[in-house]
Structure formats: structure tokens, C-alpha cells
């Protein structure tokens, strides 16, 4: 069964009227709900009628005047129309004869069961309506995002990301509730109103006409008053959307706010927007409640007329009193459905406006044909032949010309450099070839077919493009690199048992909402396209590519900084403990021995802080961070018992004095503050008064807070680094005593706050490098860090662990927008991801311009060699828009752009002799 919408359907613009859109997709469900509601009516009326019977008959005793009298229960009879039968009634079931008490029980139990049935009906109807609404909401959100995926690229230069997000997420939210009631409610309430109204008409024509008159006034006046309310509702939506757009901009541009001191400007701008929203909302409330007031007033006006006019008729004798009372009773029933209808209509208009607002944003021109993004499971044949660009003109949205009349032909696997300054058209050429810009005129063919009409399955797999800015969503480095290979599920996930049931339900629901049924948990990695033999083999081509873009060392360094969980990776952690032992053995007597001071349970580690020496472990969270240690009860107790508190207190005084002496006159942004490792700059000014107080009181008389503030300081002290001579040999023993005591009596509630050092255990809080070292790199030796890291790397290589370490590096989380990587690393990752696809033609638009020039040149040379197939690999096409024109000499051919025109083309040598612009650019 394929219930995914057809391409033609996906290409149609969204219906501008919400009700039509809803009806289109939920017709059957809506009719079913109405049917169920109608089916629930009889029991509902029975349940209303039954109490009267119970009170009249068994309780008050009507029909039970005599002690042995019985009543008939559950007698079923219908009165046939007279033309069918002359009998009074047809008895379907004679019923039971019952005495008064059993009859009471029988009726009461019937009442109970009716209440249950009613409740279940209501439960079913509400759930059904809720589900209906939620499904529709899901469909709507999916449709909207589907459209975002097919927006023409230029649309994204107009709309803000956070506004789209706010539309898809927040603005459609109220629809869900309404959709369930969209058709049911008017039918239902309308029916009720018609019944009540017909009853009134039957009683008295004139009173009926009066009812019509007031309702008509309501129907005309209220919508009129509401016009402004609706307009305000529209404004409210727009201003709210703009607000989220602005907030998104502030967040993304937060650095500009800081470096320009514009935070107060932003505050004022946000305040003005919030003010606007407030006034809109306030006026909205005022008007809404005014409408409500008018509405209520009119509803109450009718009974007044009934009393006056009806009373007049009754007194005159033209209307009997019984009728008047019945009419008033019926009218009382009328306001509820009428008000309900008015509320429904109001909601409908409100939501229609909101809906139209959203649809307007998503029904853009030039929406990409859904068929171009069709899922293609077959392998896509490599591109062959030539790329032919003829009479190509490209303009941007403002109709300024980016490329004017360009003509060139290249073979798909040619190695071509494109040069020209920014704005020369070189970059636009690359973007147009990659399908990111539409040609305004002219043709762009690849192997005879127009490039713009090719499905994305071809352009996205056989062509590769990378610009200088790539957005990297937050995920692991591995998934970032593999992203470009996830075109379709390669291997479906097998489900069993309850998982299978859940999965089937998920699919069924996806179908009901017209969503994609592709399984996100399937394996999407197209390992073959990367040249890997299996899913587990993908790191091999990744490693190659990372070497090409010179990112392999960075990945290794990331691995060294990662933490590992021994429960998730027990084998690797065990191997790393072996590495630790071997490293320690080799360290002895080697020329780097003095660069590392290993942690030894029985010795003070000179290169580590006092806190680290005391804890002899890594703090897992803030509880045992240096600044919180002094306040921790257990630590305090240990310090007290060992007398370490006195030592630390005295050191704290000296450190505070030193810090004040050195830093008191400096402004807080002075670079010297970076060197102040034992105190945070903002606390500096708290210390002079503390010192004044404790000089008088000493440790024993010092206040709790003063004590804490001073003891806190030496925890970060490292003698070889700070060189203040505060920590002497004889102090080490006291700290070691405290260490032992801390470890022996560690309470359970603290055990999760620290991961203790142990020679044979992997520390799940410390980095891989710290785990291998289980020690500290010594201060005071030049290049110590580099040499030690080099030694670790060599050892890991030797033990054959480089591959596993590499995988650890790939599991690094790159942060939002890849911000945990440097800018150069992000460019390298984007380039690596592009190369990993092994496309037939790789288009690089500047690409690696933040790298230093030597690295750029190395990578250009390496890629040109690869593209030409000189290393025995499969050759591929390369079209590179170069930042530095001189690298063009490496390429077979050069295209030179200047002011939107393709001015020169040919080989580097020819152009040097004959080309004027090129010669100028290269010199």
C-alpha cells in the first residue's frame, strides 16, 4: 500500500481556506464522529428522562397506591402508523412485572448503566476528536516543513529561521483543538437550535418572529463589532512572530551585541515590541469583552420581550399561559447553542485568519517540484560527458546581474580552476552549477540534459558542492561527516516483539497523517558510495579523507580530550589501562621522564593542585569543585581532623595578600588576570575586608564565610607554577594524611561526585589523555606537553590502537552549528564531507579560505593530484573557485571571471602569455 501523497498533490499549493483543507483530509472521520454523536442521542435523552420517572413512580408512589401493585419494566412497544396497522401498538417485548422496591432498584440500575454508556460515548467522542485534531496538526506541520525543504533558495534570504520555526511550531498549535470540532460542533449545535426554535414557532408565531429578530440583530451586529477584533488577532500573530524572529537574531548575533555595547539598544527594541504586543492584546481583550457584553445583553433582552409582549397577549387572552411558559422554557435552551455557534464562528474566523497568514508564507512561487526530491533506491549512474554552459545569464532577486553571457564547456572529470575577485561572478558560477541559483537565461547541460531539471538524487549524489560557510547541525563528528551519504535507508531495522508493535503503530499513524514512513532508525549510511565494504568499515575512507584535508591530527587530539564510559566501552577502557601501564614502564629512564609526574597514592604530586592532591580523583560535578570544597561538610571535617585547615587558612591569607598587591590596581579585562589561577577576578575586591577581619580574629575566631573564602584559595595552588614558596615539603604529609582519611571514610552521597584515581581502573570523568598519563605534565619545561603527547601517540600507534582512538575522536559532539570546532576545522569538516561522497564532479566555492596559505596550497595540490587520478585512484572532476589565484597553476584549465563576465579561459601557461586579467591576478 502506498498512501504517501502523489507528487502532483504535493506540488499543489496549500488550500487557502482551513475548513476546506481539513475537510479534504478528514472527511470520513468527521462524518463518523457525527454519526456516533447521533447514535449517542437516545441514551442521552433517556438518561435525562429517567430521574423524573424514578421520582414519580417508585419514590412518590404514582401507580403503587396499593401494596401489591406492580409496574412493568423494560416493556418495548412502538406505535405503528395507522396505515400499516389498526393496532394501538406493537409489543416487541412484554417486560417484567415488578413490585415497588425491585422496580426502584431496576430503574436506578438502568440509570447507572445509562450514565456509564453516556460517559463512554463522551470519552470515545472526545478521544476521537482529539486524535483527529492531532493527526491533522501533524499533517499540517509536516506539509509546512515539506514545503520548507522545497523552497527556492532565495526564499531563505527573506525569511528568518526562527519565524519559520515559530509558525510551524506555535502558530498552528491552536488549530488542533479546533479541527476536532470544525464540522461536528456546528452540525450539533445547529440541530439543537433548530429544534428549540421550531418548538417556539409551533407555540406562537409572533414570539418566534421576535426570537428571529433578536438573533438576527446578534448575527449582524456581532460580526460587525468583531471585525476589529479579528484584525487585532492578525496583528497579534504577526507581532508575536516578528518577536521570535528578533529574539532569534539577537541570539545568533550575540557577539555583535557584546562587542558594540548595544545590549541596551536591544533591550529597548524588545521592550518596544513587547509594548506593541501588550497594547494589541489589551485592546483585543477590551473589544472581546464588549462583544461578549452585547451578546449577553441581547440574549437577556428576548425574555424581557417575551414577558412584556407575551404577557400582553396572555392578558388580552390571545395566548394561553401554558404556551407562554413553554416558550420561555424553550428559549432558555436556545442561548446555549446560539452562543456556542457564535463562539465557534468567531474561532473559525480567527483561525482562518491565522491559517491564511501561515499559508501565505508557505505558498511561495517557484516551489521545487516534489518529484525532484523523490526517493531513489536504485544506484545512480555516474555522470559522464560534458558540462555545457551557453549564453548563461544569472541575476539575483533584485535583478542585478551576477553573470553575464557565460559560455564554456568542460568534461565532467576535468580539473578546472575558476579565478576572479569577490563579486566577479566566479562564486555565482559555482552556485549556479550546484543548483543554488537559477539561471535567468541561457542553458546549462550535463551530458545533454538540463542541469536544473535533474532530480536531486543525481545532483545530490553525483555532484558535490561546498562553499566557504557550511551549517553544521549539532551531532557527533562522525554523523556530521556521514550526513552527505544519508539519501535513503540502506538497511531496514529489524523489529521484534513489543518494538515491532510500536513500530507498526508508528507507521499506521504516519500514514493517517500523510507523513513520511521512512524509518529514521534504519541505517541510512550509504557505505558503498564512500568506498567502504560495510557499515563498520566507514571509518577507513573517513580517515583517508581527513588526512587529505589535514584534519586527522585534530581528530586525534579531540579523542585525547574525550571522556569514555567504561560501561559502554569496556574493552577499549581496559586496553587504555594497559596503555597506561606500558607508558609508565617506558617513562622510567626515558628522556621525557622528568616531563611527567604520575599520580601515586602514597606521594604528593607537585604538578597538581592541592585540591587534586587531597581528592586524589576528578570531581564529576560542581559538588567537589575547588570553589565548593571549603564549604563541603565532609571535607571540612577532614581538614579539621588533620589540621590542614590551619595550613590552608594561612596560605589563603598569603595568597589573598599577593593577589591584592598584584592585581588590585588593574582593570578587570587586563590580560594579566588570566594568570590569576587561584581566585576569580570578580572576588578580588571582597578580600581586603576579609583580611582586615581575620587578622584580628585568627582562624578560631574567624567567621564561617571568611574562613571559607580564604581556605578556597590555596586549593588551586600549584607550587612549580605559582612559585610563591608557600607549600613546603613538610606540608605534603599533612595533605597525604587528609587524602587517605578522605578516601577511607567517603560517604555514599559523595561517591558519585568524584571519580577516584586508581592504577587499574578507568576514570570515567577524566579525559583519555589523563587516563593514559594518570599523572600531570610538569610545569617549567619547554615543549614538555608536545613531547609527552608525541610519546603517547607513538605508543598508541605501536599497540595498534590508533583506529579505535580515531573512532573516539569521531564521537566528539561538535556543538550547536559546530561551534565547538574552530572555524578552520569547520571548513575542513565541510570539505571532508563533500569529498567523502566520491562524486563525479566536486565543486568547491572558495571552501578553505580561513586556512593559512601554506595549508591551503598543500590541500589544493593534494586534491588536484587525487582528481587527476595520479595516485592510482578513480579520477574525478574538480571545479574550484580559488581565493588565491596563484594556485591555479596546479589545474589543467582556468576560467577567469571579471565583473560578471567570463573574460578568459585556457591553460595556466597560455593565459599567462595571452590573458591580461589572469596575468594581473596571478602576479
Amino acid at each position, binding site marked *: 500500500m502506498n498512501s504517501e501523497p502523489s507528487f502532483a498533490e504535493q506540488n499543489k499549493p496549500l488550500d487557502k481556506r482551513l475548513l476546506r483543507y481539513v475537510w479534504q483530509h478528514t472527511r470520513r472521520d468527521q462524518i463518523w464522529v457525527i454519526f456516533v454523536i447521533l447514535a449517542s442521542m437516545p441514551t442521552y435523552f433517556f438518561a435525562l428522562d429517567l430521574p423524573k420517572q424514578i421520582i414519580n413512580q417508585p419514590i412518590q408512589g404514582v401507580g403503587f397506591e396499593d401494596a401489591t401493585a406492580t409496574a412493568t419494566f423494560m416493556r418495548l412497544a412502538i406505535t405503528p402508523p395507522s396505515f400499516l396497522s389498526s393496532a394501538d401498538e406493537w409489543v416487541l417485548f412484554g417486560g417484567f412485572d415488578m413490585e415497588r422496591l425491585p422496580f426502584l432498584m431496576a430503574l436506578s440500575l438502568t440509570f447507572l448503566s445509562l450514565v456509564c454508556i453516556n460517559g463512554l460515548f463522551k470519552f470515545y467522542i472526545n478521544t476521537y476528536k482529539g486524535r483527529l485534531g492531532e493527526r491533522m496538526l501533524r499533517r499540517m506541520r509536516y506539509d509546512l516543513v515539506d514545503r520548507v525543504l522545497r523552497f527556492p533558495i532565495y526564499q531563505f534570504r527573506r525569511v528568518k529561521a526562527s519565524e519559520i520555526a515559530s509558525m510551524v511550531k506555535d502558530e498552528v498549535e491552536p488549530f488542533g483543538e479546533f479541527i476536532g470540532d470544525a464540522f461536528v460542533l456546528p452540525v450539533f449545535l445547529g440541530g439543537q437550535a433548530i429544534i428549540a426554535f421550531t418548538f417556539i414557532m409551533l407555540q406562537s408565531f409572533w414570539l418566534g418572529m421576535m426570537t428571529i429578530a433578536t438573533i438576527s440583530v446578534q448575527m449582524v451586529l456581532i460580526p460587525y463589532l468583531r471585525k476589529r477584533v479579528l484584525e487585532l488577532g492578525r496583528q497579534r500573530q504577526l507581532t508575536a512572530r516578528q518577536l521570535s524572529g528578533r529574539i532569534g537574531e539577537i541570539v545568533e548575533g550575540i557577539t555583535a551585541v557584546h562587542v558594540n555595547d548595544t545590549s541596551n539598544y536591544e533591550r529597548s527594541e524588545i521592550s518596544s515590541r513587547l509594548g506593541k504586543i501588550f497594547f494589541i492584546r489589551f485592546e483585543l481583550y477590551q473589544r472581546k469583552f464588549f462583544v461578549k457584553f452585547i451578546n449577553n445583553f441581547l440574549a437577556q433582552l428576548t425574555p424581557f420581550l417575551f414577558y412584556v409582549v407575551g404577557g400582553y397577549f396572555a392578558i388580552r387572552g390571545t395566548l394561553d399561559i401554558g404556551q407562554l411558559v413553554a416558550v420561555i422554557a424553550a428559549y432558555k435552551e436556545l442561548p446555549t447553542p446560539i452562543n456556542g455557534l457564535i463562539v465557534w464562528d468567531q474561532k473559525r474566523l480567527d483561525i482562518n485568519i491565522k491559517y491564511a497568514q501561515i499559508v501565505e508564507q508557505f505558498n511561495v512561487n517557484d516551489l521545487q517540484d516534489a518529484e525532484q526530491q523523490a526517493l531513489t533506491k536504485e544506484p545512480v549512474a555516474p555522470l559522464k560527458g560534458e558540462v555545457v554552459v551557453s549564453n548563461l545569464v544569472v541575476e539575483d532577486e533584485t535583478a542585478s546581474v551576477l553573470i553575464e553571457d557565460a559560455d564554456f564547456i568542460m568534461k565532467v572529470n576535468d580539473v578546472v580552476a575558476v579565478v576572479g575577485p569577490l563579486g566577479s561572478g566566479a562564486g555565482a558560477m559555482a552556485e549556479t552549477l550546484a543548483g543554488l541559483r537559477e539561471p535567468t537565461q541561457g542553458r546549462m547541460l550535463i551530458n545533454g540534459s538540463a542541469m536544473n531539471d535533474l532530480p536531486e538524487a543525481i545532483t545530490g549524489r553525483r555532484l558535490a558542492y561546498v562553499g566557504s560557510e557550511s551549517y553544521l547541525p549539532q551531532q557527533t563528528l562522525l554523523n556530521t561527516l556521514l550526513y552527505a551519504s544519508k539519501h535513503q535507508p540502506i538497511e531496514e531495522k529489524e523489529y521484534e516483539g513489543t518494538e515491532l508493535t510500536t513500530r507498526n503503530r508508528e507507521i499506521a499513524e504516519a500514514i493517517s497523517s500523510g507523513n513520511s514512513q521512512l524509518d529514521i532508525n534504519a541505517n541510512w549510511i550509504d557505505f558503498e558510495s564512500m568506498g567502504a565494504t560495510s557499515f563498520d568499515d566507514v571509518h577507513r575512507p573517513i580517515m583517508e579523507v581527513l588526512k587529505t584535508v589535514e584534519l586527522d591530527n585534530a581528530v586525534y587530539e579531540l579523542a585525547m580530550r574525550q571522556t569514555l564510559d567504561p560501561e559502554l566501552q569496556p574493552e577499549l577502557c581496559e586496553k587504555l589501562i594497559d596503555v597506561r601501564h606500558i607508558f609508565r614502564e617506558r617513562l622510567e629512564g626515558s628522556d621525557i621522564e622528568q616531563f611527567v609526574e604520575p599520580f601515586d597514592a602514597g606521594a604528593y604530586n607537585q604538578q597538581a593542585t592541592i585540591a587534586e592532591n587531597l581528592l586524589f580523583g576528578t570531581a564529576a560535578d560542581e559538588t567537589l569543585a575547588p570553589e565548593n570544597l571549603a564549604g563541603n561538610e565532609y571535607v571540612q571535617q577532614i581538614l579539621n581532623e588533620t589540621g590542614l585547615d590551619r595550613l590552608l587558612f594561612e596560605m589563603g591569607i598569603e595568597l589573598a595578600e599577593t593577589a591584592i598587591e598584584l592585581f588590585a590596581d588593574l582593570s578587570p579585562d587586563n*590580560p594579566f588576570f588570566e594568570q590569576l589561577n587561584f581566585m576569580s577576578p570578580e572576588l578580588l575586591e571582597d578580600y581586603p575586608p576579609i583580611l582586615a577581619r581575620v587578622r584580628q580574629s585568627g582562624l578560631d575566631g574567624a567567621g564561617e564565610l571568611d574562613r571559607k573564602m580564604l581556605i578556597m584559595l590555596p586549593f588551586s595552588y600549584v607550587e612549580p607554577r605559582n*612559585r610563591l614558596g608557600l607549600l613546603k615539603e613538610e606540608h605534603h604529609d599533612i595533605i597525604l594524611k587528609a587524602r587517605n582519611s578522605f578516601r577511607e571514610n567517603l560517604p555514599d552521597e559523595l561517591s558519585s561526585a568524584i571519580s577516584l584515581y586508581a592504577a587499574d581502573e578507568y576514570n570515567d570523568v577524566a579525559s583519555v589523555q589523563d587516563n593514559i598519563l594518570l599523572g600531570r605534565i610538569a*610545569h617549567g619545561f619547554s615543549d614538555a606537553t608536545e613531547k609527552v603527547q608525541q610519546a603517547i601517540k607513538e605508543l598508541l600507534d605501536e599497540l595498534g590502537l590508533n583506529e579505535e582512538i580515531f573512532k573516539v575522536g569521531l564521537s566528539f559532539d561538535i556543538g550547536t552549528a559546530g561551534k565547538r570546532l574552530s572555524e578552520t576545522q569547520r571548513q575542513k569538516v565541510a570539505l571532508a564531507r563533500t569529498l567523502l561522497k566520491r562524486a563525479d564532479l566536486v565543486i568547491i566555492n572558495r571552501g578553505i579560505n580561513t586556512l593559512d596559505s601554506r595549508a591551503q596550497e598543500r590541500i589544493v595540490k593534494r586534491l588536484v593530484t587525487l582528481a587527476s587520478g595520479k595516485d592510482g585512484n578513480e579520477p574525478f572532476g574538480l571545479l574550484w573557485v580559488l581565493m588565491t589565484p596563484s594556485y591555479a597553476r596546479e589545474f589543467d584549465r582556468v576560467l577567469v571571471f571579471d565583473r560578471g563576465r567570463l573574460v578568459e579561459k585556457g591553460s595556466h601557461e597560455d593565459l599567462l602569455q595571452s590573458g591580461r586579467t589572469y596575468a594581473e591576478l596571478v602576479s
Partner: protein
Amino acid sequence: MSKLKDEVDLLRSIPMFAKVEPSKLKLLAFASDRLTYKEGQNVFLQDDAPDAAYVIIDGSADVIVSTEQGGESKVAELGRNAFLGDMAVLCDIPRTATVRASSTLEVLKIKKEHMMEMVIDTPALTMAVLQTLVNRLAKTTKDLSEAQQALAKQSA
């Protein structure tokens, strides 16, 4: 005695820092790294961008420039109290020579940004830097005119 105090004394013995307040020198020493180099290890290389200036605490170092033939020639040897790399840092020009430890060498490494901050913040140091520069210029000018005279004599 703390090492930091020794370092402050050492700094004060350098002419350029002679007039700078002791507390400023202590800050400079506090912010600097004390590093040990093995014999033969390079402190910095000719043509590198400067990142720090160095004061020799103990040991000795050779100043080496590369010759046009691609070889090396030792132009000076520096010992205790020598201040090296200061001009490259202050003027932000590439290193004019390579400095290599000729014994076990202990130095105080003063980072460029700290050096600059100190010069900007301390008028006495600014004057001292200016004087040092003028003195060197005068010496270089004198050397140059002597060399020119020698050259003139030769050709004559």
C-alpha cells in the same frame, strides 16, 4: 625564599626594568613561565613571529643567524641576566636570529601581551624602552658609518 622573589630581583637587575615599581615587576614575574631548556634546544627560530621575550635565569645560550649559503653562524653568546627577544616583541617584527641553549638553560618567559601591557601601563618602562631603542639606533648608526668608512678605505 620563593622562586618568584628571585625572579623579581633578576628582573630588577635588567637596565630596562630598573626604574619600574617592584610590585609591577612582581606581577610580571607572577604572570610569566619559568622554563628549562636542554642543551641544544631552540628557544626560538629566526624569522618566526615573536610570542614572548626571555630573561636568562641560569645557563647560557647562543645567538645564531643563518648565512646566505644556508649555513649557520654564531654571532653572540648570552649568559645570566640577559634579556632576549625583547625588540622583536615590542616592535612586532620576525625574530632576527635563532637562540639555542648552549647548556642547561633556565629562563623566565614573558608573554608578548604581558610585555606590551606593562610597557603601555608603566611610563618609566616606556621611557626605558625608548632609551634602549635610541641607544641601539645610535650604536647601529655608528657601526654603519664605521663600516662605510672601512669600505671606502678598501675601495680607495
